[in-house]
């Protein structure tokens, strides 16, 4: 009996992926019964979170539950494995799926949106793909789920079926499939250089090939992953994709799709190439500079955007590059900050998007200059918005500060204090493009009458704002994101046996 249980426990990464897949397949049966359908989503989301969270203690102790592999020729396999980095991403995605599902129920019903079954099915598939790539044990598995993610998010982008949405969808596909093919070429190259290799903390490519080949391979990886990570100038799809319904923008483009790209960057730099290899070919500096350029330019572009969601999109582009910057710098502190920011940014950004959606639903306002006085009409909503915005700016005691501080420390440790300047400057820009919204909302008078949205819409973002505060005060609370990040970072820098909690 216990061995069956052990075997079942070992399959948890696979089970986590399958839960939402099963939900996706069964939901069309309930298309005529919205309550059953939404119940299905919520049940699947809760179960998935439960399964993922159950692996927490094992992973913190240094184990890596892994699922059986599907063997392929030439030593390849499809293989799922839960390690600290993967668990950070999976926990974030799973938690936020629960919240987004609740929020979607309120939002989509308030708008009486059509084709809701397709929406929930696509969402479930997308979450399967996200969990799959979080737990991917090697590059091929990662790629498979990466492409499935692209395919399952396309219907969500074009959900409203307007000409604008379709055009955004086409752009999305061109960018992501193009990037995907480049990524495939890079993966094939890795396979030829290091056949059958799995992700190893600290990388497995050291010494396998010439520096030039390493540089070209790394460039291919970064360009391929850079599309989803919205690294400039490959970011063009993201602002256009804001044509999707707000819950889609929230989860996917603030959490799942773009985080998949950033997560991929951390995986490739830390678990394929390794910090030392990258330093030897100076790729770390190049990547850090590219990330910094993205951070600064995105912040400037955000200032110029009138539409609230598009402004948030540019903010996302900048924030993601913090993660890229952290992984480029390659010290324990920098990596800890980057990985922690995967979770922290997700919670903060989703708060902001949810608030934007609530504002849209309640008072039909979409532009930043139309929000005067809403703070008095919708205090909870704008309050949560304020918390999220301050967090992103890196104000201490909120979640965003923790990541930024660690990356800054890492920059100094790595010998490039200039990047601290980048972090500070972007923080100032953050304040510049968020603060006026907040001050206008609370200090001016409102020409519009509105109230906070119903609890099913409001509760999710209140919860996520609360988490932002909690993670700021106690970074290791709840799901131990900080410990996981630190564990992952130390194994990356010091090799598989160099891990261990301080």
């Amino acid at each position: 009996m216990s061995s069956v249980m052990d075997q079942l426990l070992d399959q948890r990464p696979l089970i986590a992926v399958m839960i939402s897949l099963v939900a996706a397949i069964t939901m069309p049966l309930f298309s005529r019964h919205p309550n059953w359908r939404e119940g299905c989503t919520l049940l699947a989301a809760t179960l998935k979170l439960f399964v993922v969270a159950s692996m927490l203690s094992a992973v913190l102790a240094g184990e890596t539950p892994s699922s059986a592999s599907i063997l392929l020729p030439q030593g390849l396999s499809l293989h799922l494995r839960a390690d600290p980095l993967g668990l950070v991403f999976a926990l974030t995605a799973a938690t936020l799926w629960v919240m987004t599902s609740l929020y979607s129920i309120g939002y989509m019903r308030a708008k009486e949106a059509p084709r809701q079954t397709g929406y929930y099915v696509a969402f479930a598939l997308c979450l399967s793909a996200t969990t799959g790539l979080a737990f991917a044990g090697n590059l091929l598995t990662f790629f498979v789920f990466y492409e499935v993610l692209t395919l399952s998010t396309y219907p969500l982008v074009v959900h409203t079926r307007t000409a604008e949405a379709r055009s955004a969808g086409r752009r999305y596909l061109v960018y992501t499939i193009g990037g995907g093919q480049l990524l495939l070429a890079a993966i094939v190259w890795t396979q030829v250089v290091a056949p059958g290799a799995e992700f190893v903390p600290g990388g497995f490519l050291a010494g396998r090939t010439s520096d030039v080949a390493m540089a070209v391979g790394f460039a291919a990886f970064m360009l391929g992953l850079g599309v989803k990570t919205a690294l400039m100038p490959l970011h063009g799809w993201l602002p256009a994709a804001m044509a999707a319904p707000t819950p889609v923008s929230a989860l996917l483009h603030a959490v799942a799709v773009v985080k998949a790209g950033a997560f991929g960057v951390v995986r490739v730099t830390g678990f394929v190439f390794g910090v030392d290899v990258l330093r030897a070919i100076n790729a770390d500096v190049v990547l850090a500079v590219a990330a910094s350029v993205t951070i600064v330019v995105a912040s400037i572009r955000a200032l110029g955007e009138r539409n609230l969601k598009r402004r948030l999109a540019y903010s996302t582009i900048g924030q993601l590059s913090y993660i890229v910057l952290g992984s480029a710098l390659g010290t324990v502190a920098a990596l800890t900050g980057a990985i922690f920011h995967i979770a922290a940014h997700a919670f903060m950004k989703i708060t902001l998007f949810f608030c934007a959606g609530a504002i849209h639903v309640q008072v039909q306002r979409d532009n930043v200059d139309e929000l005067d006085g809403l703070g008095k009409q919708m205090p909870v909503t704008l309050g949560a918005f304020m918390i999220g915005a301050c967090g992103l700016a890196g104000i201490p005691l909120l979640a965003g500060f923790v990541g930024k501080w660690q990356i800054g420390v890492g920059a100094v440790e790595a010998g490039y204090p200039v990047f601290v300047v980048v972090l500070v400057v972007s923080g100032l820009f953050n304040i510049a493009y968020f603060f006026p919204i907040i001050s206008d909302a609370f200090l001016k008078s409102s020409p519009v009458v509105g109230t906070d949205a119903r609890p099913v819409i409001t509760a999710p973002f209140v919860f996520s704002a609360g988490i932002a505060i909690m993670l700021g005060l106690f970074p290791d609370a709840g799901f131990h994101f900080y410990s996981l990040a630190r564990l992952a970072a130390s194994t990356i820098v010091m090799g598989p046996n160099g891990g261990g909690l301080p």
Partner: protein
Amino acid sequence: MTPHLAVLVVVIPLASSLVIPLVGIFSRRVVQTLALLAHVVTLVLALGMLGRVLTEGSWSYHLGGWMPPWGIEYVVDPLSAGMAVLISGMALLTMVYAAGCLDKGNSRHPGLSEALFLLLTAGLLGIVMTGDMFNLYVFLEISSIAAYALLTSEEGPSLVATFRYLLVGTIAASLYLLGTGYLYALTGTLNMADLGVRLSEAGDSMAVVAGVSLVVIGLAVKAAVFPLHGWLPDTYTYAPVAVVGFIGAVMTKVSAYALFRILFFVLDAQAVSGAAVTWLGWLAVVAIVAGSWMALAQTDVRRMLAYSSVGQMGFILIGFSLGNVPAMVGGLFHILNHAVMKGCLFLVAGGVRWRTGATTVNAYAGMGRRLPLSMAAFLVAALSMIGLPPTAGFFSKWYLLVGAVEARAWVVIAAIIVSSALSAIYFFRVIEKAFFHAPDEFNPASERTELPSVMLGPVVILALVVLLLGILNEPIVTHFVMHALPPNV
């Protein structure tokens, strides 16, 4: 009994094609059953042959008991047996599909279309099984003539397109024959294995080069190698619904197989075949990009699929010309995959035209609602063409890419990436129209008018096979494709 499988697999469809029109004079209803039976029997024989080859090894069959190299020899090895299964399987599925849409108006000659179809199948099987150069020519022409006749079942532009195809195809076959004549003059043998031995003794004279080039060019035209592909777009676009699936999926593959056989098994390690392979490789790279590029420019879905096929033949040839094991595995696997994927796509495109008359991308608006299962199969096959996991197309591209990286052929890698991106664009254009557009002024009706089950069945089966080939690619490659490689790779 079992050694005779090699020849039975050709004789049964051949004999049936003769018998069926006679039967048709007496009873019309028996005709379709007989034809179906013939295809089923052929498939069973081919599977039996494949099973025996994989367990007991290759064998050769001497027609009439005459010993080679004077007699005609049929060679059964994993490659030919596999191709035989592919041909007979696709033939059966397309026969079932065609039963749903064949013009019943051909009542003056019942059984004629079925007989021609069986003749085509027999011809293709003969090409695959034979080990004799002239025998290959005979079957090449048999299959081509049957194809020409089948392609004109409908009136209209298919007549002119088929006439062009006839001209080009016959000239190509004549070139092949001429080349065979040169090689015969040099070596005195027509047997493929013997030819390989004798040619290596004959050295490197101009006559050898001329002979080989003629043979290669003739087959290359038939295989639609760029830039000799000009006959293909019109032929596939105007082909009747009942036959486009089979002809579009299989005929060029069989010619590619013949090229592979001759270049690698007959002429292996010759200087002249090395040169031919290099040339083909470069043409293939151009084909990959040009095919996808031209497909992008099409508004007619069938023409788009036709140009896509030109590009895909490029993939197969690249696999052959890169020269290492993964690339060849990729090329051979792609023969199998592409036949299945393209077959599915053509069957759906034909079915859509038959049901709704829609042929252009715009006219596909909302088709996902009207023919949901067919368009779902189209989606699966399209994803495979683009090369997204876990479909079969991803894996053949994977092997090709591994081979390209091993051979340091960066141009090839770039071409594959560009082509995949282009394919994504032109396939998703159709998918977007079909699933994410409401029926508009091009397409006012919106009720479900799915294909009848006889037509839908093969379509769905092919889509499932696409998925299965992808998921099961490991056993297929290890136990079958690897054994089909030429001996000295």
